[in-house]
């Protein structure tokens, strides 16, 4: 028999899950009032009904009684017999709080005094003079005779009948139908409530007549259940034998209602074909309810079919599994390193290793997936927090949430609860103004707080955006000066945004008085510290009078991450991949030009930006004598810089060498190292050595780095000579094990892997390698491009470039990778050209071939790209391509013509507008950052001209951030896409042209 304690634990779990939706639904009820979506009221009612029903099942009197009273009130709301106001929702929320506290401590629930809340709810019920009239209904037995009888509330039965529902008695045996089928009673109830509504449960002792037969027959539960399903379907849906489902006879009841109606005068507007509409004044709502009821049944049935089978697993087991998966990954890494040299000598070792590796990766992925939870678990509680605070502070605040389906590791979700609550409380207390103040400032009386979650660059972003007063940087800075958190000279150097960031300093508070809402002087710094502990970052954007945006960037998980192993002064460190933007090698002769010193701090000039540069040897006091000795003849070494993301800023970290990417298992630092803020943890690498994981935020703090990009950029960029005004491209230089040099735009590359030629497998005429648990198709450049054929041996090590932005992933096999190069590209398409090749350019003093990655993949796997060919046969469309960079113009033009579009090109917005005057263009592909007239000005001019108001325009830009995209779409762009993403560009263009 199922243990009662287990059942009770199930009940608590289930009830707490119901509370997760009950509270936000009640708040929605308050917002929408009588206009509330009927499905939300139904969900509220069902949730409360389940809690009440199950509590009755366990003899939990208080929970049952309170649940029953709340269910009655919700029933009145559902039947629109009570008007929804703040007072009613207050009572329901109050009841929910008490109910939850009783569920959380079920053992003591019957000792809690609930008389106060019961009286409150009863008063609400009394105001509607509710009288529950019961009706006696009978089972229909197989021979047509009457079976057991049940007393049911007449209103409820009427509601079911109107909705086209039938009522069944369902007999369920605890062992035969539940325990023996590996189910719990809750599985059964859940199944039942997903296909209908259950009304009542009772035990049936009918099968036991006395002592003689008492041990031969099993006890059963009798559920009364209402659904739109026909009788034949119910046993199938509930997985029960047919004889255990009996229909309840409703004929007499329906007849009686019809008779009653005949006695009443029928109003003209009453629908005669619906004789069951008893209350003429409620025709509209009843009709809605009818269809709602039917829909509910149908969608629920559909939901049932789609739903996955689930089981509950304890968090401890999950944590154990995660730790074991971590150990397995470590073991796998070590095994790979140890066994790699033996592959040649031991036959069959390689496939075994690859198999173990892929299974490990897959298993680790699945376990991590198990720990993921949607952020709705975090967001849902803030509706109540905002409501209560708004009331307390006399403000009107609306909380809007987006991206609730975005998932994060359970540990991160839990750890975010406090910092996020603090941010929301601060928003309510400090940011959103009182309604009168807002009105005076020309704003709506009601302030808005937006909570947004979205994925970007392998991280989860959580934005808290308010339309309040904004942060007055100067006021903040003055306060910080008074509190001696900064000096006068520091203040003078600060930008407005930097001043605003001072609120993150420990001990800072501008609140005039210490309130119990916020303003205790601790808080924002604690929030920042907590976010840092989660390997995340916090950034602030604010505008006085308009509002503030607090952006949290977090890793998806903390347990196992991909990291780059770097070497500095003969010591190894790991940088999490999520922090890495790119890797740059600066040639010795460029070092002086590209690394400058400003105010005793080094900065790196990278394309059009200046990055603060951290020298790890200096900052971490690493022994200089151990450092890299490799120097060129003139004494200047090449410099390798890891460009890392720090909040919304970018920094450079000087390193001696970049080793390899590894899946690393993050281990916490030992207690005696906890104070070292430059590290977030440690890990054991594949070679068995322990490495410290760098914490970029801690490293920046340790370097006492002030991120003031705006000023420094202006300072240095003003010194740029005119030749630098040409747009530079970042290219990855490599060869194919011959003298020929090749290059690909870095933006097109996900990563570069090193593989042993022996580990490459051939299947039919194609070649594959194992990559992240899957087979990755490999492409040898010499098979498709007019280049020299290299000599290939089994013991060589090859580079494999994994492209990004392609529909079907494959790897390009290359020889040596030289690093990146950053300079303007003057592409020559005439002298060296062929399919799969854009042309050549002189880069770094050498002729370099530039493969067309997309064409190459199409050539290598034509079966994947058959669809694109079809477009050529259709009507030809004219596309205006606007880009100031010849390199991008050429590439994008090639993309467009390759699928049959006609293309005309312009170098800036002004030229584009002239071309638009003289050509009938079907769509425009527009760059944003351009000289003479940029993309913003161009779209404004186009949308202001009636001729081009509706012309499809897609922005193709390197501004890939969400903010720019939003701004772009608001400015009138039809679509927004990043540069060089051929497949998405063509897909969106095709969509726009339909």
């Amino acid at each position, binding site marked *: 028999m199922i243990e009662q304690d287990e059942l009770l634990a199930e009940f608590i779990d289930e009830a707490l899950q119901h509370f997760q939706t009950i509270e936000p639904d009640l708040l929605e009820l308050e917002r929408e009032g009588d206009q509330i979506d009927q499905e939300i009221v139904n969900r509220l009612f069902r949730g409360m009904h389940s809690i009440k029903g199950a509590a009755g099942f366990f003899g939990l009197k208080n929970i049952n009684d309170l649940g029953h009273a709340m269910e009655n009130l919700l029933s009145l709301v559902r039947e629109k017999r009570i008007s929804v106001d703040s007072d009613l929702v207050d009572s329901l929320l109050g009841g929910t709080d008490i109910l939850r506290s009783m569920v959380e401590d079920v053992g003591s629930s019957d000792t809690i005094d609930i008389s106060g809340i019961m009286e409150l709810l009863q008063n609400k019920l009394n105001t509607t003079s509710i009288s529950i009239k019961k009706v006696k209904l009978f089972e229909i037995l197989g021979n047509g005779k009457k079976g057991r009888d049940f007393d049911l509330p007449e209103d409820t039965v009427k509601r079911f009948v109107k909705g086209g529902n039938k009522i069944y008695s369902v007999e369920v045996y605890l062992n035969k139908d539940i325990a023996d089928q590996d189910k719990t009673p809750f599985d059964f109830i859940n199944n039942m409530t997903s296909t209908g509504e259950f009304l009542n449960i009772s035990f049936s002792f009918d099968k036991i007549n006395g*002592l003689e037969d008492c041990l031969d027959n099993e006890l059963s539960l009798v559920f009364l259940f209402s659904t739109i399903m026909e009788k034949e379907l119910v046993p199938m849906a509930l997985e029960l034998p047919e004889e255990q489902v009996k229909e309840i006879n409703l004929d007499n009841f329906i007849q009686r209602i019809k008779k009653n109606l005949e006695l009443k005068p029928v109003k003209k507007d009453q629908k005669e074909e619906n004789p069951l509409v008893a209350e003429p004044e409620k025709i509209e709502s009843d009709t809605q309810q009818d269809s709602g009821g039917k829909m509910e049944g149908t969608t629920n049935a559909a939901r049932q079919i789609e739903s996955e089978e689930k089981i509950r697993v304890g968090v401890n087991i999950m944590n154990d599994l995660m730790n074991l998966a971590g150990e397995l990954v470590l073991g796998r890494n070590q095994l790979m390193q140890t066994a790699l040299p033996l592959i040649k000598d031991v036959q069959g070792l390689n496939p075994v290793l690859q198999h173990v590796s892929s299974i490990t990766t897959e298993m680790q992925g699945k376990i991590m997936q198990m720990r993921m939870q949607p952020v709705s678990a975090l967001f849902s509680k803030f509706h109540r927090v905002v409501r209560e605070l708004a009331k307390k502070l006399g403000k009107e605040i609306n909380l809007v949430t987006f991206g609730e389906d975005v998932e994060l590791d359970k540990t991160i979700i839990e750890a975010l609860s406090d910092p996020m609550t603090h941010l929301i409380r601060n928003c309510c207390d400090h940011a959103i103004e009182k309604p009168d103040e807002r009105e005076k400032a020309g704003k709506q009386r009601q302030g808005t707080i937006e909570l947004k979650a979205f994925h970007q660059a392998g991280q989860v972003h959580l934005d808290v955006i308010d339309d309040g007063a904004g942060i007055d940087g100067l006021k903040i800075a003055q306060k910080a000066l008074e509190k001696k958190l900064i000096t006068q000279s520091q203040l003078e150097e600060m930008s407005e945004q930097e001043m605003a960031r001072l609120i993150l300093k420990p001990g800072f508070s501008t609140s005039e008085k210490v309130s119990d809402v916020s303003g205790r002087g601790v808080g924002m710094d604690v929030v920042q510290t907590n976010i840092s502990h989660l390997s995340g970052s916090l950034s602030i954007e604010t505008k006085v009078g308009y509002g503030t945006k607090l952006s949290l960037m977090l890793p998806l998980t903390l347990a196992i991450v991909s990291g780059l192993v770097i070497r500095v002064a003969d010591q190894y460190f790991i940088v999490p991949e999520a922090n890495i933007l790119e890797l740059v090698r600066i040639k010795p002769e460029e070092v002086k030009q590209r690394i400058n010193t400003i105010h005793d701090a080094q900065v790196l000039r990278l394309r059009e930006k200046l990055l603060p540069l951290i020298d790890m040897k200096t900052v971490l006091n690493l022994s200089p004598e151990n450092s890299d000795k490799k120097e060129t003849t003139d004494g200047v070494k090449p410099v390798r810089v890891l460009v890392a993301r720090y909040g919304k800023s970018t920094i450079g970290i000087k390193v001696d060498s970049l080793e390899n990417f590894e899946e690393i298992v993050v281990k916490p630092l030992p207690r005696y190292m906890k104070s070292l803020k430059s590290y977030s943890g440690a890990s054991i690498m594949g070679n068995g050595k322990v490495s410290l994981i760098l914490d970029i935020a801690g490293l920046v703090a340790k370097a006492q780095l002030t991120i003031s990009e705006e000023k420094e950029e202006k300072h240095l960029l003003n010194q740029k000579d005119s030749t630098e005004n040409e747009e530079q491209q970042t290219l990855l230089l490599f060869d194919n094990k011959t003298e020929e040099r090749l290059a690909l735009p870095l933006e097109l590359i996900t990563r570069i892997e090193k593989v042993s030629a022996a580990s490459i497998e051939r299947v039919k005429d194609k070649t594959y390698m194992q990559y992240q648990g899957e087979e990755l198709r490999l492409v040898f450049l010499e098979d498709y491009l007019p280049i020299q054929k290299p000599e290939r041996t089994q013991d060589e090590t090859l580079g494999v470039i994994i492209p990004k932005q392609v529909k079907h992933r494959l790897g390009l096999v290359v020889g040596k990778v030289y690093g990146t190069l950053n300079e303007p590209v003057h592409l020559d398409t005439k002298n060296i050209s062929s399919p799969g090749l854009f042309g050549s350019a002189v880069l770094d003093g050498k002729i370099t071939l530039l493969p067309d990655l997309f064409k190459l993949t199409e050539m290598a796997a034509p079966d994947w790209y058959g669809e694109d060919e079809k477009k050529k046969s259709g009507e030809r469309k004219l596309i205006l391509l606007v880009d100031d960079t010849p390199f991008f113009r050429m590439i994008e033009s090639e993309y467009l013509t390759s699928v049959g579009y006609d293309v005309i090109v312009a170098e800036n917005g002004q030229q584009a507008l002239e071309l638009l005057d003289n050509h009938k263009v079907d769509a425009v592909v527009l760059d944003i950052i351009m000289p003479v007239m940029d993309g913003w000005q161009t779209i404004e001019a186009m949308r202001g001209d009636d001729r081009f108001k509706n012309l499809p325009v897609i922005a193709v830009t390197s501004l890939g951030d969400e903010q720019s995209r939003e701004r772009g779409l608001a400015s009138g762009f039809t679509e927004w896409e990043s540069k060089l993403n051929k497949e998405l560009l063509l897909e969106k263009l095709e969509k726009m042209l339909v």
Partner: protein
Amino acid sequence: MRIYRRDKTLYIVPMCDLIASQVEELRDAILDKFKKENSISHVILNAEGIDVVDSLGVNLIIGTYRQSDSQSMSFEVINASMRFTKISAFFKFEDFFKVSPEKKTK
């Protein structure tokens, strides 16, 4: 286990858990007593010492109640422990017969 009669009342005192390994023997003993004794009007199950009741134990209680009811005898449970009371609430015994908790001793 003790089953004894005092006036018109039959007392059943199992003094053990009502679990599968015990119930058959208990059922036979109770049934035997029901058959032998005449003029009983009241049956009392003294639940003292009953901590665990499994599904067959519940069947035995219900069987005893049904047997009593069919012979026009009233039935009640006395000295129910906290766990027994919970089981009683779970199966809604009190819809059919009285269940009294155990008396607290000082």
